[in-house]
């Protein structure tokens, strides 16, 4: 943490990558003069169409590619340095896994690369398999998995070291809506616990939901950067959401609006297709339909889901853990309303040196970003740097969870 006093998890300085052809002649400028700054405990989204340089940036941060010019500082050091990479979890664009290993062996292999001892590995693997809904398929070779199932194992391997920084390349690609929802919940929950997450995606709806801040890339250049709320807020419209109103009340509102010279439109709010889909699948699970796919717990509401994810992560990061108990399985395997409290505990029974326990209540507020110096228009930046939405969202979610518990 020399260069930035620990303020930034990732910082790049004029990072440039030019791909050359076989003769060494420059051909494609994949990343151009990138000055990226990702603060600690931020969820940062790299958005852009295919070929805009998202993956190339991630690969340079991780040392898989050497920059043509400039440099990148990750967690205060070089991403290739084992001391730094021990604190990083990485999910590549496709889950490049060994098809001949089964799910458990795969996670055990990656756990060993982090030097975790076999007891810690075992408990973390159990918890992670449970979390990604593949506990029942632990002994099946990865080669027989569907793309989405492999993706879940990919995600599990990225979490096995309880990383400080998660780098996720297209985290939701190939996942079904339930998996997608879960990953989004997980990202939010991890961020709440002080982790930094850098993700690349072209699925804008997913990014919109989880990111505090996004950079939109095109042709290797950052076109826009800023917090999601600031970028997307429509300053010319107002939206009012209420319970169903009587005709009389509606008429009154119409009159007020028209008097003010505004336009007025009334329609019932649409449910999101995602939540509709999740409802249907949950009902099928409750009807005990058998499935050979991943088994996800489907909590009914956002609050329940958040609570469930929070429980899982609690166990991953708690410094002190109760002795491990056998994970209870609900009668119907496919339906699990609340995850067991000890899953995450098992994951963190023996925190490694690199693993810093994160105290839940002490989550630092995202500090206000100073305006960026280089590359980007200042007036635009000034608009972009008022982060408050994310922390507010989190607080709301916490509140809801508390209420649920009290009930």
């Amino acid at each position, binding site marked *: 943490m020399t260069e930035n006093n620990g303020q930034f998890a990732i910082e790049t300085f004029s990072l440039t990558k030019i*791909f*050359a*052809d*076989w003769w060494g002649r420059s*051909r*494609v400028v994949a990343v151009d003069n990138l000055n990226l700054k990702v603060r600690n405990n931020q969820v940062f989204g790299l958005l852009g169409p295919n070929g805009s340089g998202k993956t190339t940036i991630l*690969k340079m941060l*991780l*040392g*898989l*590619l*050497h920059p043509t010019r400039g440099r990148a500082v990750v967690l205060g050091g070089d*991403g290739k340095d*084992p*001391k730094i*990479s*021990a604190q*990083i979890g*990485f999910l*590549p664009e*496709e889950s*490049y*896994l*060994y098809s*001949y*290993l089964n799910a458990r*062996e795969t996670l055990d*292999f*990656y756990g*060993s*690369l*982090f*030097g975790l001892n076999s007891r810690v590995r075992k408990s973390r693997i159990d918890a992670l398999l449970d979390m990604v809904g593949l506990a029942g398929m632990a002994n099946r070779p990865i080669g027989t998995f569907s793309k989405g199932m492999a993706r879940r194992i*990919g995600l599990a*391997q990225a979490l096995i*070291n309880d990383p400080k920084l998660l780098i996720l390349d297209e985290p939701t690609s190939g996942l079904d809506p339930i998996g997608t929802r879960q990953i989004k919940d997980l990202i939010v929950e991890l961020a709440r616990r002080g982790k930094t997450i850098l993700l690349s995606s072209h699925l804008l709806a997913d990014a919109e939901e989880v990111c505090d801040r996004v950079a939109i890339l095109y042709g290797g250049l950052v076109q826009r950067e800023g917090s999601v709320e600031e970028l997307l807020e429509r300053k010319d419209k107002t939206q009012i959401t209420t319970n169903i109103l009587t005709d009389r009340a509606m008429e009154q509102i119409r009159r007020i609006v028209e008097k003010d010279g505004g336009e007025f439109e009334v329609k019932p709010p649409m449910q999101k297709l995602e939540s509709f889909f999740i409802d249907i699948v949950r009902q099928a699970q409750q009807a005990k339909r058998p499935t050979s796919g991943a088994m996800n717990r489907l909590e009914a509401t956002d609050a329940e889901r958040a609570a469930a994810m929070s429980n899982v992560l609690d166990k991953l990061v708690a410094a002190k853990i109760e002795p491990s108990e056998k994970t209870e399985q609900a009668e119907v395997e496919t339906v699990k309303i609340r995850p067991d409290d000890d899953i995450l505990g098992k994951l963190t029974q023996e925190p490694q040196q690199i693993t810093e326990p994160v105290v839940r209540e002490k989550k630092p507020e995202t500090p206000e970003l100073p305006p960026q110096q280089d590359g980007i228009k200042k007036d635009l930046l000034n608009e972009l740097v008022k982060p408050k939405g994310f922390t507010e969202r989190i607080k709301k979610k916490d509140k809801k969870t508390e209420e649920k518990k009290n009930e």
Partner: protein
Amino acid sequence: MSRVWAVAKNSFVSAMRMKTAIVFMLLLIILLPILSITSTGDGTIKGRIQSFISYGLGLTGFLLSILTIIVSCYTLSSDIKHKQIYTVVTKPIRRFELILGKTLGVVLLDTLLLLVFSSIIYALTLQMPRLTKTKGDELVRLNNEFFTARASLKPDIDEQVIETKAQKSYKELQRSGQLNDSRSKQAVMQELKDIARYSMHSAEPGGMVIWEFKNVKPFDSNDNIFVRFKFEASRIPPDKNIYGVWYVGDYRQIKYGQEKMKTPIYAAPRKDVVKTVQEFQVPANAVAADGYLAVVFYNEPMNDSTIIFPQEDGFEVLYRAGNFGLNFVRATLIIFARLVFFAALGVSLSTWLGFPVAVMCSLAVFFTGVINGFIIGSFAYLGENVSLFYKYAVEPMIWLLPKFDQGCNISKYIIDAKLIGTAFFAVTIAGLAVKSAILLVAGFIIFARREIAKVIV
């Protein structure tokens, strides 16, 4: 180290679950017992066992080398090609640990397979005499000439002596004025040296050839020592038989006329066919206490022919200096060291080459090893004119190549029941270890600098 071990375990599992390994294992499991039944050799039980062990060890060494080459070239290049390497090198593992782990995984596979198959060969070899109910003389002969490990003594030509002799002859010629001015001194000396060398291994009618050896250490003085020879004659009699007497013992006792004979000198009058390998034995107590032994061949005048022992394979003394089991273990360990070398070669090459090219290069090295002597010979011949380049560029490269032929043909040692001497064993193993280490270090350096996710547009 735990990381290296994790990678090793993974690449071992990969190889075991790869069909290639299974195919090679099945091939050996089926072929070895069949070989033990079908090999006939020269018809005797010794010939059968010799041909079995020759094919068995040869086949095992060959197939395992090929398997090692394929697996070691595959394990890293496939990770790079299928991009699993992305999730591995981004973990806290150093690149050299990855290379080391990959190599170790292949070595583990080799250890397992070699252990299994050499045990099968060993067990079948020991069982063959029992299965064929070999008894009596044949069994004794088998135990003396096959189930043993004999050290071999070959005449060591002392160039100093040859030089002195040639010089002497040259002066003689000079004095008698027989030198022709048209020929250079060098050419004449060369011819004289050849004559001197030749004369040391040939006997005119009524003449003698004497071979002297030092540091002869038989395993047990109650054993026998074996004299193996092959000669040619300037005039071959109709029945091709040559008469001669062999004396084996401490020749110094006669030469310097000691008062009392300390060790016996054995005389063996024989009649042997020319141009075929012959062998006879005398008690090992013929060897003097200080390890000196002399063998003398006396050419009977009635042959009326000069007897010549070819320099290559004309004369050899063998004596038991170890046992079959130990010799077999040493042979297996040398094969193992070769497999380690190929594992290091394959992994090292695939740090910068794709699978097909790496396999091709490794196979080229393998087959070069098989005809190493030929290659060295031809390079030495070519290199005479470009000696500096040869010495500093070609020679080190050739040194890096493994050597499986001539003196390094391991199954030949077992077939001939020749002891794999401790010095030879240590030098061979150390040589291969050094070569493997050099290859691995080269691999470390290349791989550490490699841009793993490099895209060429």
